[in-house]
């Protein structure tokens, strides 16, 4: 009988403790190219998994698909096969108007503007990243030379509710809430962080996220490359700390 988890089609040993989580299955291979000896492990539905090495440590990249429902499944099943450190990596919309395009958001906490996490914990509970992962991403940004900014992300369920709010029957509520998030200091809008943070928190696992922000001005390819290299570098920082037995902070 197969021991594989149902959706990801993985079993223990297939993935490392450290997992990068892009939304897009098409981003797994480019990320895996930054590992040593990358190999494709599984593809099922929107879930593509590659594993490889950073030094002598096994690391993996698994796509979550779009949204918290599929991301929650990915994190749950990765926990079952032994992963305990998750870094979301992807693209987001800028919320603050002074954001230069290509700046990387390091997500410290997430607005639970989605329907998945209330199946886990009441809405009052904060979706918060691991401080150690946040610090590791900041250090990684220093090493890669990325322009980073720490802050809160909006995790929403409706992409078009963000980008085309005026055509929604509840347009005024969407506008009001967007303005509230902006005035609360949120920096970016994406669709998965809150579920990754809430589920990790419940399991005592570590989670964080780094997001390319689409803001003012054109994106460039080097900026996209910096997103991936910064995410991978943050795993190196965490691996170094874990090997040294460091307690954060």
């Amino acid at each position, binding site marked *: 009988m197969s021991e594989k988890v149902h959706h990801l089609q993985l079993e223990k040993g297939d993935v490392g403790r450290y997992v990068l989580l892009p939304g897009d299955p098409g981003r797994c291979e480019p990320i895996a190219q930054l590992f040593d000896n990358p190999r494709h492990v599984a593809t099922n539905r929107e879930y593509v998994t590659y594993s490889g090495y950073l030094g002598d440590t096994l690391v993996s990249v698994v796509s979550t698909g779009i949204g918290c429902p599929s991301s929650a499944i990915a994190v749950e099943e990765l926990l079952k096969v032994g992963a305990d450190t998750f870094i979301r990596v992807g693209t987001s919309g800028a919320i603050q108007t002074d954001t230069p395009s290509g700046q990387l958001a390091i997500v410290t906490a997430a607005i639970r503007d989605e329907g998945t996490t209330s199946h886990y*914990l009441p809405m009052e*509970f904060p*979706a*918060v990243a691991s401080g150690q992962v946040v610090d590791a991403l900041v250090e990684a940004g220093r090493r890669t030379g990325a322009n980073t900014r720490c802050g*809160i992300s909006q995790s929403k369920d409706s992409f078009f509710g963000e980008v085309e709010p005026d055509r929604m029957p509840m347009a005024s509520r969407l506008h009001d*809430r967007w303005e509230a998030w902006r005035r609360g200091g949120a920096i970016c809008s994406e669709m998965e962080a809150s579920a990754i943070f809430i589920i990790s928190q*419940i399991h005592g696992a570590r989670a964080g996220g780094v997001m390319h922000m689409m803001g003012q001005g054109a994106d460039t390819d080097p900026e996209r490359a910096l997103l991936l290299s910064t995410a991978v570098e943050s795993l190196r920082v965490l691996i170094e700390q874990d090997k040294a037995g460091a307690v954060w902070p």
Partner: protein
Amino acid sequence: MAMSTTDNRQYHIQVAPGEVGKYIFLPGDPGRCEPIAQFFDEPRLVAKNREYETWTGFLDGEMVSVTSTGIGCPSAAIAIEELVKAGSDTFVRVGTSGSMQHHIKPGDLGVIQAAIRDEGTTSHYLPLEFPAVADLDVTRALAVGARSLGKTVHVGISQTKDSFFGQHEPSRMPVASRLDERWKAWMAGGAICSEMEAAGLYIVASTLGVRAGGIMMILGNPEQKPMTEAELKAGAVENVLPAAIEGMRELIRQDNGK
């Protein structure tokens, strides 16, 4: 309605700009202000009105203050709002809290990285989906400062509640089963401690673009059983004050690039 006098003395806290530092300690209890101020150089009483008592002095040459918030988010939100108007921008909540995990014992310290918004004040600011999260620089400095004194430190999430007796005597409340169910959910979510002001301070700080964090003495246990004599002694609130002071010193050093 103008909520300050002609000299900009704030309505509730009765503090004017220049009378407080950028760095503020926020205990709940007005009676804790003077003991905290005794750690300052040149401490002086600045104002006293309602539950708000303010002292100002210096730590390592930096002007710092302590202002009591009273119990609960309604009065704590007023305190931080008016302190920002008076020129402050960095807040450290210090006080006592109840343990929410069996391995977290009286005498341990909790550094509150984020808070459960189990209260009524912050929904006047932001929808409930928005996280009440501390500034990470403040959180890191408080943990580093406390550890440097040899304290056992837990960094994590607190429950910020509006009802003290809803936590301590839930069975006598008409909504007992709901209180019990939610308490268990917070525990399963890994919350470390229960107190009554952090969410209010963190959400208001986020909207004002200022920094906040918190360090708490841990008392009690998740079942609300009486504490032993030894636990009461370990959990004396005086034991958290040196750690809070050291955390603020660490933060001031970091801010000054030292």
